[in-house]
């Protein structure tokens, strides 16, 4: 069973715990939830977890989403989707094989966050021709 980690960064975002946990569990995924304060060091710690395959995909809710994107996208094999709409959500799972999604809660309404997470988790990577771009991204770092 695919294992999803839901990471709520910053006290304001702890309110998403119940709703988003239900979204992920309803899709029959194994769930790990963590609430934490936002810091560069915390992001490095999370990167270590994803690099060592403690879970398959990571969903981050943070105020703007910019720092988690900037830090985590610097690492080999991480593809981070800093998004706020349903179209990007399923496309990034299907075409980019994104293993990390980060949503800025200060910019995105609660119902949209719910839908974006749902579409992301419900969609699988199509691989095929898209793999050439993933291989290229991995050449970069």
């Amino acid at each position, binding site marked *: 069973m695919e294992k999803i980690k839901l990471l709520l960064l910053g006290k304001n975002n702890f309110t998403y715990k119940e709703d988003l946990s239900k979204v992920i569990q309803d899709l029959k995924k194994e769930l790990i939830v963590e609430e934490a304060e936002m810091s*560069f060091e915390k992001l490095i710690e999370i990167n270590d977890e994803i690099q060592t395959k403690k879970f398959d995909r990571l969903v981050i809710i943070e105020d*703007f*989403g*910019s*720092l988690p*994107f*900037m*830090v985590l*996208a*610097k*690492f080999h094999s*991480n*593809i*981070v*989707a*800093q*998004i*706020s*709409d349903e*179209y*990007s959500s399923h*496309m*990034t799972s299907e*075409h*980019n094989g*994104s293993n990390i999604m980060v949503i*800025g809660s*200060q*910019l995105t309404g609660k119902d949209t966050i719910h839908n974006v997470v749902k579409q992301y988790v419900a969609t699988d990577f*199509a691989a*095929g*021709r898209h*793999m*050439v*771009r993933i*291989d*290229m*991204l991995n*050449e*970069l*770092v």
Partner: protein
Amino acid sequence: MKIAIGCDHIVTDVKDKVKKMLENDGHEVIDCGTFDFERTHYPIFGRKVAMQVNEKKADFGVAICGTGVGISNAVQKTFGARTVLVRDAITAIDARKNYDANVISFGGAVTGTGLIYEIIKKFISTKYEPTPAKDELIKKINSLITVKKFEDNLFDEELTKWDKGLYHD
């Protein structure tokens, strides 16, 4: 101002329109391609934009693909680049003020040219507001990639495999 712009084949028309808008404002635009709708790969163009900025050939970069996810990752995985993927001006302004972002990324299939243009104008006119803590954070972000992989043949293996039809659905 000198602005490097790049895109993949999904949004060449969007890139061309944004390029014209910026040129009409008197900016010098360095067009990193792609130039048509023939299937190609976003890492090539995201990397080109980021390299132009890193080598000080451009003041800022603009990167566009369908959702912006692929090309923003290509930019961010390039030495010295700091980008964000946005659909709003607030995030773009925040990225300039707090992280001295040097490239702005967009999903051309999810964001209209008018809004892209508006956000770019805000992005390039917002100044970084330095503090010792922000300077330190930017140093930490930059230190995550220490090797400058700017060689021309970086993607040769993937492109050869692509041409041979080894990547297919």
